[in-house]
């Protein structure tokens, strides 16, 4: 990437940001210039890194795996960067700010997931693999067959994840600074493509590291400001949380009628007890299974282990990643509870119903509030970090999908492994461009869709298809091509099919019934209030009644709009009027199915060669003899 190209792309981004006519939301309009300044500074730093990385990206190995020359510490930060997507950074802080304990409990699974990666996946993958997950499977199976299926599964998982990130990113940027959704998606896409196309894995790795460090620093500063007021005493701080009127009011709202006989102190304490968000323990266990087994099957995470030179460095990188990710989730506990106390649930949900704005709004509050320079500078910084997060995560995903396309499908299957490094590098860049453009298109087309469950689905497919085949290839002598194909197909399809018939989908009949109940309730209230209104003597009571009337009318209008939005549809996407499968997370069923498919497929297919290759695979995976070496720079 030349300097001129970089200047041009920064210019294009700045123009896109500046030309937007929309008004600001979290950032008010007089502070937009400041926000763009901070965004620009962070983007400029990442572009400079990309420029340096582009000079080092000469071979296919550089492009896919940074030449295997990344250290364990660097890779640990990069894994943390890949993993701490906007969903976990903003999402978990938001869940804690609204639901307390349940939000915190949710974060635990994301950390525990790395134990699987550390103990049974990272080191063997480093010793057996080269560039992609397909390489691991191809070791003792029919390379063309397993690479085709593994590449399809990689692309499926990455696309689900990517769509959620693109849509989430577009909405986020719009909510934060009021840029149009389409422009936000395009800006994310163009920046990400600049990193990937020019800098490959080297640039992507450094962008992840920079972003992860910024994220941790921003969170540390905020936590110091929140917790420091209480002399860093945990009981002191949490005592203040449960004693806070905003927190107590939020719990009362969540509990509804059952909160009537509770004292304020009980309401506050309830915030630190389970059950405000999660009502179905089986669903929680199902999600936990998908997290604990799915993380070790995510292509963009596994790919990171090919960037380090040895199994020892791979191990070291997971340990660093666990330290960073775990530490970050502990900070999130303070960010979430701090936002609940200082910003308050109504202000958080006022901007975004899912609570995603908890951390940015907390930053603004800590800096001095809506009208202060420091408050808006801090908000701008957190917003810019969130933006960098989306771009970096998307870059990692695109790189994973593009590697599967170019290395597995084009080189492995079409060219029969006979391609020079130059040809492969070119193919990898073309594939990145294709995937990137498709990602932007999907992002724009999926505008307004509910895509939150797509991340959970990505984890479910990874846990039900990718993990069983990789695990059994590495640890079971009788595993073979038949098992791999059966596992990938059945694991993927069962996870997707179960989600298609689950409560995640939209069921017009149910929504209509629920909204009609709301309208009926609102009508009754409106009638009652209207009857009371003329008889009210004092001014405050009249004012209160009028306010209640306005609330009821707003609720009615909202419900009517929702019914209208259904547009006469009566069944879900697959033609159901109600969910057929009651869990939101399919893992509980699809993960055992995936494992079973590999077992049965392998036993039915029987492949002598796969069994003969077992000793070689097992010795190599445990000793690192003959592993793909790091390229010299």
């Amino acid at each position: 990437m030349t300097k001129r190209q970089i200047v041009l792309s920064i210019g294009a981004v700045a123009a896109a940001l500046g030309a937007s006519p929309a008004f600001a939301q979290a950032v008010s309009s007089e502070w937009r210039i400041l926000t763009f300044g901070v965004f620009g500074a962070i983007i400029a730093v990442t572009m400079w890194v990309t420029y340096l990385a582009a000079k080092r990206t000469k071979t296919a190995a550089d492009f896919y795996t940074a030449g295997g020359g990344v250290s364990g510490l660097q890779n640990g930060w990069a894994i943390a960067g890949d993993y701490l997507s906007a969903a976990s950074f903003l999402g978990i802080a938001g869940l804690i700010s609204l639901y307390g304990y349940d939000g915190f409990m949710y974060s635990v699974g994301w950390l525990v997931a790395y134990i699987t990666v550390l103990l049974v996946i990272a080191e063997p993958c480093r010793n057996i693999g080269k560039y992609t997950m397909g390489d691991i499977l191809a070791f003792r199976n029919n390379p063309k067959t397993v690479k085709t299926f593994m590449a399809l599964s990689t692309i499926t998982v990455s696309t689900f994840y990517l769509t959620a990130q693109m849509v989430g990113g577009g909405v986020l940027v719009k909510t934060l600074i009021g840029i149009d959704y389409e422009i936000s998606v395009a800006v994310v896409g163009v920046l990400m493509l600049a990193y990937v196309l020019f800098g490959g894995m080297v640039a992507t790795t450094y962008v992840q590291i920079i972003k992860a460090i910024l994220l941790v620093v921003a969170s540390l500063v905020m936590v110091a400001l929140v917790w420091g007021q209480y002399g860093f005493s945990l009981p002191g701080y949490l005592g203040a949380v449960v004693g806070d009127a905003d927190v107590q009011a939020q719990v009362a709202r969540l509990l509804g009628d059952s909160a009537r006989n509770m004292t304020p102190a009980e309401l506050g304490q309830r915030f630190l007890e389970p059950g405000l968000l999660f009502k179905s323990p089986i669903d929680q266990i199902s999600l936990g299974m998908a997290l604990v087994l799915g993380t070790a099957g995510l292509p963009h995470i596994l790919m990171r282990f090919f960037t380090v030179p040895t199994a020892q460095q791979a191990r070291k990188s997971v340990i660093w990643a666990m330290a960073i990710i775990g530490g970050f989730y502990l900070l999130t506990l303070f960010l979430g509870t701090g936002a609940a106390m200082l910003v308050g649930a109504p202000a958080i949900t006022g901007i975004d119903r899912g609570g995603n704005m908890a951390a940015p709004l907390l930053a603004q509050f800590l800096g001095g509030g809506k009208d202060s320079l420091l408050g808006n500078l801090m908000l701008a910084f957190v917003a810019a970090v969130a933006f960098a997060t989306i771009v970096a995560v998307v870059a990692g995903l695109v790189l994973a999908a593009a590697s599967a396309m170019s290395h597995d499908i084009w080189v492995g299957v079409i060219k029969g492994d006979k391609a020079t490094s130059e040809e492969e590098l070119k193919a990898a860049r073309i594939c990145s461009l294709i995937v990137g453009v498709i990602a932007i298109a999907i992002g724009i087309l999926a505008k307004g869709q509910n895509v939150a469950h797509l991340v959970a689905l990505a984890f479910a497919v990874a846990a039900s298809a990718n993990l069983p085949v990789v695990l059994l290839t590495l640890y079971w002598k009788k595993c073979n091509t038949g098992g791999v194909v059966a596992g990938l197909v059945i694991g993927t399809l069962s996870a997707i099919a179960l989600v298609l018939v689950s409560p995640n989908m939209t069921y017009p009949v149910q929504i209509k019934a629920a909204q009609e109940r709301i309208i009926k309730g609102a009508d009754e209230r409106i009638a009652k209030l209207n009857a009371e209104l003329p008889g009210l003597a004092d001014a405050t009571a009249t004012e209160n009644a009028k306010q209640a009337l306005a609330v009821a009318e707003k609720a009615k209008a909202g419900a009517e709009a929702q019914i209208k939005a259904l547009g006469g549809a009566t069944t879900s996407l697959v033609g159901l009027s109600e969910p057929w499968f009651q869990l939101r997370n399919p893992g509980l069923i699809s993960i055992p199915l995936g494992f079973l498919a590999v077992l049965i497929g392998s036993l039915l297919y029987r492949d002598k060669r796969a069994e003969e290759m077992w000793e070689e695979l097992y010795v190599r995976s445990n000793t690192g003899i003959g592993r793909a070496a790091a390229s010299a720079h």
Partner: protein
Amino acid sequence: MQPSAALNWFAIDSDARFQTLHKRKSRFLWGLMAFAVVYYFLLPVGAAYFTDLFKIKIWGAINFGLVFALSQFIVAWGIAWFYARKAGEFDALAEEIARDADRIGARTR
């Protein structure tokens, strides 16, 4: 593609040292894995079915549930630390086998 591709892998696999490595490592890793999984799932199960236990206050507003959730972090890090310490032993054995691989795995034809 690698120089060691022509090794007799079967001979290395049945070498006593490799078998020691295999047995020790498998027992250690899968044992730790099983413990980690059981300990983790105690959290959602406990939060759903043992709510009274989770609500017991221990220190100010801090209740058992919060302590248990925090312990998940300590246990996860503890497992990482424990494995990192133990792995040196596996590394030494693996390195020894890798160094001798050409001799143990020489093809006798």
